[in-house]
């Protein structure tokens, strides 16, 4: 277990030091700033769009940040060490996913209220929005990592990774954004949508490490 | 909206172009691959 735990800690520290989270947050706000320039600053319109809009911008920010997930390890040879470890690769990958969740998704959810106020989000939808992002977070990390692992041997894989991951993100986006939207209509948290998100996250965290390990074993050599 | 003819012709036309193009390129690749081996293989 110790190898997994150390992977976890190292990854969180690295993400913190390298500032990858600040890049994601910067992109979030920049993209959000573009929206009123595009659709006009009318507050009622922004209020209606807000939950889905925030979700789409989060997805875009994640899609763009994914390619560095495994490539930095592949470049400096960290992979060979991981694969020589006595721990099963799947476990180490799971540790990496958890680290990604803690390092990226948690700060993102903390920042969401500020981003929400930029687009005049309805207060009633704010809490359901944060909940939906937190519950869907593991799925987002796991599915994104699959794309990142598949493209690990490709130079400049950013757009390729985004292309691969986009269909995987569609179900998560649908349930996540709409669970926040539904809060606008019906008040409170849309429990059935949140449960579907939770199921997706659980399944993704269990199954993605299998695909990721299979990909890394074949590709990182 | 009574000009259904355009939509029907357009649908079949696009399908013909896409499928025809695919068949054309697949078959020409095949013929080229066969010809490349012709000097060394006595089959056409």
């Amino acid at each position, binding site marked *: 277990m110790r190898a997994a735990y150390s992977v976890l800690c190292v990854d969180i520290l690295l993400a913190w030091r390298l500032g990858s989270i600040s890049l994601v947050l910067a992109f979030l706000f920049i993209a959000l700033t573009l929206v009123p320039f595009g659709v006009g600053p009318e507050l009622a319109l922004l209020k209606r769009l807000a939950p889905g809009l925030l979700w789409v911008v989060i997805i875009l920010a994640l899609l763009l940040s994914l390619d560095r997930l495994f490539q930095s390890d592949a470049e400096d040879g960290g992979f060979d060490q991981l694969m020589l470890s006595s721990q099963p690769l799947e476990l180490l990958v799971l540790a990496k996913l958890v680290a990604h969740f803690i390092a990226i998704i948690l700060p993102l959810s903390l920042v969401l209220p500020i981003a929400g106020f930029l687009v005049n989000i309805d207060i009633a939808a704010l809490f359901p929005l944060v909940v939906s992002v937190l519950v869907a977070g593991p799925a987002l990390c796991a599915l994104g990592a699959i794309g990142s692992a598949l493209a690990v041997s490709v130079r400049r894989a950013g757009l390729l990774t985004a292309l691969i991951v986009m269909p995987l993100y569609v179900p998560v986006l649908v349930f996540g954004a709409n669970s926040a939207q539904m809060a606008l209509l019906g008040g409170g948290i849309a429990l059935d949508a949140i449960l579907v998100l939770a199921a997706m996250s659980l399944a993704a965290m269990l199954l993605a490490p299998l695909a990721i390990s299979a990909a890394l074993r074949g590709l990182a050599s | 909206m009574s000009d259904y003819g355009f939509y029907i012709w357009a649908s079949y036309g*696009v399908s013909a172009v*896409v499928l025809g193009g695919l068949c054309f390129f697949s078959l020409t690749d095949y013929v080229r691959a066969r010809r490349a081996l012709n000097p060394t293989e006595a089959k056409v």
Partner: protein
Amino acid sequence: MRIQKTDWLHYYANPHRFMGLAQALFYPLWVCAILTLSAGLYLGFQAPPDYQQGETVRIMFVHVPAAWMALFGYSFIAFVSILALIFRHPLGHLAARAAAPIGACFTLIALVTGALWGQPMWGTWWVWDARLTSVLVLFFVYIGYISLWRAIESPEKASRAAAILAIVGFINVPIVKFSVDWWNTLHQPASVSRFARPAIHPDILYPLLVMGVAFMLLFFALLITRMQSEILNQRARRRLGGDL
């Protein structure tokens, strides 16, 4: 003396034997495909106009079989990828790679004919209807799959990555369908499915089925053509370049 049951799958795993089979099937497949296609087109234009949709029901004869093949194509890719990855069948990767552009073309046809079918009905070129949206996502799945094959230089790494993507994507397809259906009912409370099928009576069913068979034959004709091209190219490379 032990009589062994012929294991067709492994018998044709040998590329040489496969080439023999492919050559034997080549002309029959193409000829049958063209014949059934002609028959389907003839039946399609003979069918009387549907009382609800008028002449545009003829678009359905291309749209629906194309959508079937789009889905079949990806299922086929996933199936042979599993054979290649888990059971290590050597022709699996080849078949998957060859089938991808064919499936993508059928998906494109389904999308374009879907839009053309919808325009005379509802006056807009595109509707985010559940089925069309699912097909659009499927199109991006194909594009991602083909892009992955082309992005990785080493053939072994590329085939392995593509196989994993095919399987992951295949699991994703029903999930996407489920999500898009849910999303659609959420945003269209007057929930009459926009592409409600006309009542299927024989005049419409037969051309549809014939076109479906024609497209299926075309799929396999194109598939073995492309697979043969790839094997022949590999042979040429080997002869010219010494051993790989």
